[in-house]
């Protein structure tokens, strides 16, 4: 190169350096504001990319090497939020090849591991080391994002090549002992200081390791990693995440109170840490503390709603959440607002705070009707029940809250929508070979029957509460008619046969319970109308369906007493006292008589005691 040419080149380097610095200044000014403008960010990213393209448009040379590597570093950092990791990795490989080209060494392979080896050897002790290390950080970051910890380990080991390879290679120690050249050149500005990035990467790597351990269910090892991570300086949100992860590990280790402690710490550090709230709600449920669970869910729901109102753009250049890989986001993910709302409503109704539950259910129905956008965001494995179930639960809540006409309307929705799907009869035949698709269809049909039956049952209850026994009887009858459509070939379907899947058994149990409730309900209506024979028949049948139900036995005693069959009444009376009701897990909407306190049997009790006394005396 002639003197003149060199001079020109120097001028170019100066101009491009200035351009780079201008971009960085613009970026930093924008970031300083309360709400960074996304447009500015995007423009900075584009301009930086253009600058890089300009620089890479001419052959690589050592005079421009510092500049080129700095601009590459900046561009990759900017493009983190605008493009995916594989694209950045491609560009990074390209940059590395150019760096080697400038140094005059040729590497045919484009495998990043080999490339890095060559790069680190070529620039071992030169002035370019800080810049090479900047690009190395980017590579580290990319591999960390993809959870390729082995590659990270190889890379870091290569960097520490001065050290003897005597000790067994360990990522933690390698990270800890990493000696990177972190000098900054004031004439070439960077978007993020290499030291900051290195610290962030360090802690993220540790966290990522912990998450890996969690995945492998080695929770104590995970706790160790998190413990180390907590010792490192980290941003608030990341610290909160670490606390949450610690709590999760404790929860898995069967120490719920420790878990709750760390969840609380997490929320204290960063109030926007939703996963801690959600996880604590889960722990409270596990501990059987419905009040605390409801409180946690309520907090979570309001927090999520507040957040969705705000623009949820990431505020920092390198978001720790993305750095820690997909696994951590998976672990710390929270359900969608609708799902949270449903959990909240369900818990409320289940635990007896009916009025709150009704309000939450109504909110949920409204949000489902208006925009179900948040429904799409799925949670971690938990999903919303089928929509008819949600409706039935809402109807149940309304019924409990004595809003009978509303309950009737909601049930009507379920009835009309399922009407077309109700088959004439459903035969559950486990003997015949059924493929999965067929059994799915059968199960779905059973569901339709169950929903329709339950809807009629709830309607009948509402009518009964409204003292319209005639309408109630009609609806109970409808419910029974629906529910008897499903029958099984096996007599003792409750036993698990080879083909009888768990789901089928579960549904059959629920169906039987529903049938029993419907029959019992109709019996009571008949009793109220004075049709004692019909009442007796229905209650008998009901008792067959749900053996051991104390309420039904009591009612049966009442009917028999009224029919003046006192001996039989006495037998039932005694049975009722003796047999503890068999516990069956029912869906929420069928838990009409959750305990023995549903009816007032004091009259009957008195009568029966008098009768027993009279008999004995």
């Amino acid at each position: 190169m002639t003197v003149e040419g060199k001079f020109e080149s120097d001028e170019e380097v100066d101009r491009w350096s200035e351009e780079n610095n201008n971009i960085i200044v613009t970026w930093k000014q924008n970031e300083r504001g309360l709400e960074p403008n996304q447009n500015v960010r995007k423009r900075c990213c584009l301009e930086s990319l253009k600058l890089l393209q300009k620089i890479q448009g001419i052959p690589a040379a050592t005079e421009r090497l510092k500049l080129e590597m700095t601009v590459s570093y900046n561009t990759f950092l900017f493009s983190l939020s605008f493009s995916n990791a594989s694209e950045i990795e491609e560009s990074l490989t390209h940059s590395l090849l150019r760096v080697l080209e400038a140094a005059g060494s040729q590497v045919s392979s484009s495998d990043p591991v080999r490339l890095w080896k060559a790069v680190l050897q070529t620039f071992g002790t030169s002035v370019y080391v800080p810049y090479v290390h900047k690009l190395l950080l980017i590579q580290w970051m990319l591999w960390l994002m993809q959870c390729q910890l082995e590659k990270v380990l190889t890379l870091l080991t290569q960097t520490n090549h001065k050290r003897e390879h005597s000790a067994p290679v360990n990522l933690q120690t390698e990270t800890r002992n990493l000696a990177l050249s972190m000098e900054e050149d004031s004439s070439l500005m960077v978007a993020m200081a290499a030291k900051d990035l290195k610290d962030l990467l360090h802690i993220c790597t540790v966290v990522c390791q912990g998450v890996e351990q969690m995945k492998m269910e080695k929770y104590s090892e995970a706790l160790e990693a998190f413990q180390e991570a907590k010792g490192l300086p980290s941003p608030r949100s990341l610290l909160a995440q670490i606390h949450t992860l610690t709590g999760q590990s404790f929860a898995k280790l069967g120490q719920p109170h420790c878990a709750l402690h760390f969840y609380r710490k997490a929320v204290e550090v960063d109030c926007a840490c939703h996963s801690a709230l959600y996880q604590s709600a889960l722990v409270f449920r596990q501990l059987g503390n419905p009040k605390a669970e409801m409180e946690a869910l309520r907090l979570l729901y309001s927090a999520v709603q507040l957040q969705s109102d705000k623009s949820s753009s990431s505020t920092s250049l390198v978001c720790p959440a993305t750095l820690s890989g997909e696994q951590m986001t998976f672990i710390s993910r929270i359900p969608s607002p609708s799902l949270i709302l449903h959990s909240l409503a369900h818990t409320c109704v289940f635990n007896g705070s009916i009025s709150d539950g009704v309000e939450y259910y109504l909110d949920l129905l409204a949000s489902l009707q208006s925009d179900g956008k948040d429904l799409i965001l799925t949670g971690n494995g938990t999903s919303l029940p089928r929509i008819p179930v949600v409706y039935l639960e809402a109807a149940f809540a309304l019924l409990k809250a004595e809003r009978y006409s509303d309950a009737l309307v909601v049930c009507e929705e379920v009835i009309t929508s399922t009407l077309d799907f109700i088959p004439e009869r459903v035969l559950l035949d486990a003997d015949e070979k059924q493929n999965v698709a067929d059994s799915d269809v059968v199960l779905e049909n059973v569901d339709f029957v169950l929903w329709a039956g339950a809807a009629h049952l709830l309607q009948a209850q509402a009518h009964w509460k409204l003292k319209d026994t005639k309408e109630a009887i009609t609806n109970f009858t409808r419910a029974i008619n629906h529910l008897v459509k499903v029958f099984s070939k096996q007599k003792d379907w409750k036993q698990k046969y080879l083909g009888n899947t768990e789901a089928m058994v579960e549904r059959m149990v629920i169906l039987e319970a529903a049938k029993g409730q419907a029959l019992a309900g109709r019996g009571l209506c008949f009793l109220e109308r004075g049709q004692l024979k019909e009442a007796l028949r229905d209650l008998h049948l009901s008792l067959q369906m749900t053996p051991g139900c104390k309420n039904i036995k009591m009612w049966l005693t009442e009917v028999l007493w009224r029919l003046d069959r006192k001996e039989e009444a006495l037998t039932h009376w005694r049975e009722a006292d003796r047999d503890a009701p068999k516990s069956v897990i029912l869906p929420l909407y069928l838990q009409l008589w959750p305990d023995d306190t549903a009816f007032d049997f004091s009259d009957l009790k008195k009568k029966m005691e008098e009768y027993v006394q009279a008999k004995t005396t």
Partner: protein
Amino acid sequence: MEAARCNVECLSEFSDCHSVRLIQDDTNVFLTSGDGGVLIFNVQERRVTTVMQFEALVISLALSEDKHRLYALCANGGLYCTPLPPQLSSSSVVMNKSSDSVLYTVPDDFIVLKSFFLQAFTIVEKILVTLSLHKSIWSFDLYEEPGSRPLHKLAHFQVVTVNTCCSNTTDKEKSVSSPPVLTSIYPEGSTSVSTHQSDLHSHLEPHLFRLLFGVDASLINSPVILCGLPDGRICCFPLLVPTLAGPTGERRSPVRVLQSLEQPVVFIGTCVSGEHGPQCLVAVGQRGKLLMVRSKQATLEGKKADYGFNEHSVRGPVLCACVDDKRLYYSSLNDLHALQLSTTSSSSDTAGTESQLRALTSDSLGVCKVVALSGPYTNSTGSVQLFAVSLSGRLLQVNLPHGSEKGNVPRLPSSVAGQRVKDLLASIGNIWERAESLKHKLQEKNESLKRLNQVINVCSLLLDKDGNENECNTSTKHPISCRGVARWSSLLQRDSLTLACVLENSSGCTLEHGWTLCIQVHPLSKGPNMEASSRTYSFPFKKLDSGQKLNVTIPLESTCGLSLPAKIYCSLVFSLSALFSPEASSPGVSQLLTETSSISAPLSTLTVDWLDVLRLDGSFSHSNIRHNTVTDGIQAFLRSRGALNKDADTTTAGPIAVTVRVSSELLKSKLQLSATSSAETCMSVLNWLVSPEAIGQTLVQSRVVCAYSPDGCSVKIMAKEVTLGDICSDGPLEVLEIRVESTSVAAVCGLHHAILRRLQVLLRDSTVKCGHTKQLKAQSLFEAIRHVESLYKDLQDAQNQAALRGTMKTKSSEILFPILLQLRANPLVIL
């Protein structure tokens, strides 16, 4: 078929475009052009208001929910979201400010999503649904609509991947040939939708919707995304329903394959309006398979309600399709068809098939090569319109006939059919006649244009020659020329002076019928008894081919006698009425022509003077002389009676003579005479004077030409060389003296004038300069001037006297005549 005839308006023409997307909002039609542009055509203003230029070919288009943003998927894999220009988004405001279309270049910044695997997208409920194909896996992705937010904050939600069943063929090519179709369908009556965007999305009655798409979607009124893949499968998934647990608790993919057409899907829509909305889901395959999905009502026997698939086939290939509430419109390459879909749902199978077969008779709308359709829309007047783009890039507005439901009337009774056939034949005859007359008119027009073209050619030829009007002789170089020579001819014992004119066409083109040669004779002098001015002779001719000549002869003497000299104007005239062939059936344009509407192109101008009309000795018969002597005798008689006082004075005075003196050197150089002796020079000069057109011939053999003037007086023209010693200072000057003698004053005057004119022309025209100017003697010049001055004084006196005394003619002429003679007898030398 009368009922199906529709009215097609071509709204605009664009460049050729093969894959066209067409969407429409209230006032604008958006269509893609071949080179990455999206043209926004305003229907009311009937013009392209805006052109949005993208960087690559636009594959697919969609408008955002609020119609403020346009989404475009380009061939470079970029999905652009660009705000619409303000005047478009506020559709109600009529903007008349600028009549030019505005060009917007859409930059890279508007890319919201970039992936080379993107195949199709749609926007529903502010959710962007994309379909991409990667490694033979179709995947749907749902994003939160970017809206005004610059960062495409994707609530990324991978719905499902479906393995394509025929992955052996290259998927990329297949998908390019027929992109997948994405449609969203709402249950009818969902409140959030019916308000503002019922035109953009399809609806389906709740019953069928529930049957097809499940309880969950129906309960929460979620729209359903239907996707027709190029392999023929129709997939669907509810948009707003979460991934639900399956019956056994496991997670299920929400995407379900509804049916497979086994050919690329071109269109999915809903049709056949019923009480609660469209009752039928329609899908059309590329090769003409038509799938209709209808619900079967639950029967009384308690059979479960179900839906039924009916497959039909129409003649393919189907390029594009659209539906209104009763009909399916689809375009094969040859025609646009309207297919009446039956409204009756097939309650029983036998009746159903029959009714459907009948229903599948499609009506041709007679519009061919439609590659994209949009609509149909009912405009304010109640007529139904489709917008279509043809293969050649025309935007068409197809106005469908009003009562075309009647087109489905099954069969006509035979009597009516006969009448119908007759009507049709009659209308065919009418049309044939019209076509024939139009053809005839066209021919006539072409003929006229051909003629007009020829006329203009000829005119331009004639205009090419520059204005040398005087010399007809030199005009031989012009392609069309007219020359004339004055001749004496004797007819019926009477000699008459005629002008023989020759029109020669040496040009390349033919002078057709309609041209007329016009010769106008315009006497230059006006005698007391010659009031009649110019006369025009016209000779229309049929045809004058190139190289042909036309000879015409016109008399120079009029009834009032001969008036010399006379100017002859030759011109070619074309009458415009000849442009239109005489057998033209309709009066047409020719009725607008006035009598005089013609084109006149001047050809040449010649002058006939006394010299031209001299009769040389021996060139005429004796009878003429006798005749002349008779007239002389009569004149003499009259003179003796004193009737002709004026002439009496002149004739009695004996022969009158005038002389013209020209420098012989000048003459020689001008006439380019090679003669050396004076006699030869004189003869040549006389020859030149008497017969200018035959300059080589020697008509005149002596120095004296004896001839007769047209009125029979004998005339002598003499030429001799004289040496004048007193004019020039540098020695004697050779001068040619031309002397005219005659008893008739008129003849002498006329000849004198003619000789002078010729000399004048000769001297003016030629550019040859004399070798040196002669030094003239002042003495002789003074004398000459003094002489002329005295004559001028005499003339003024005579004038004064005449003015004082009134009309004493004889006296004044007595005074004037000698002055004239003196003036002429003693000429100046022309040098």
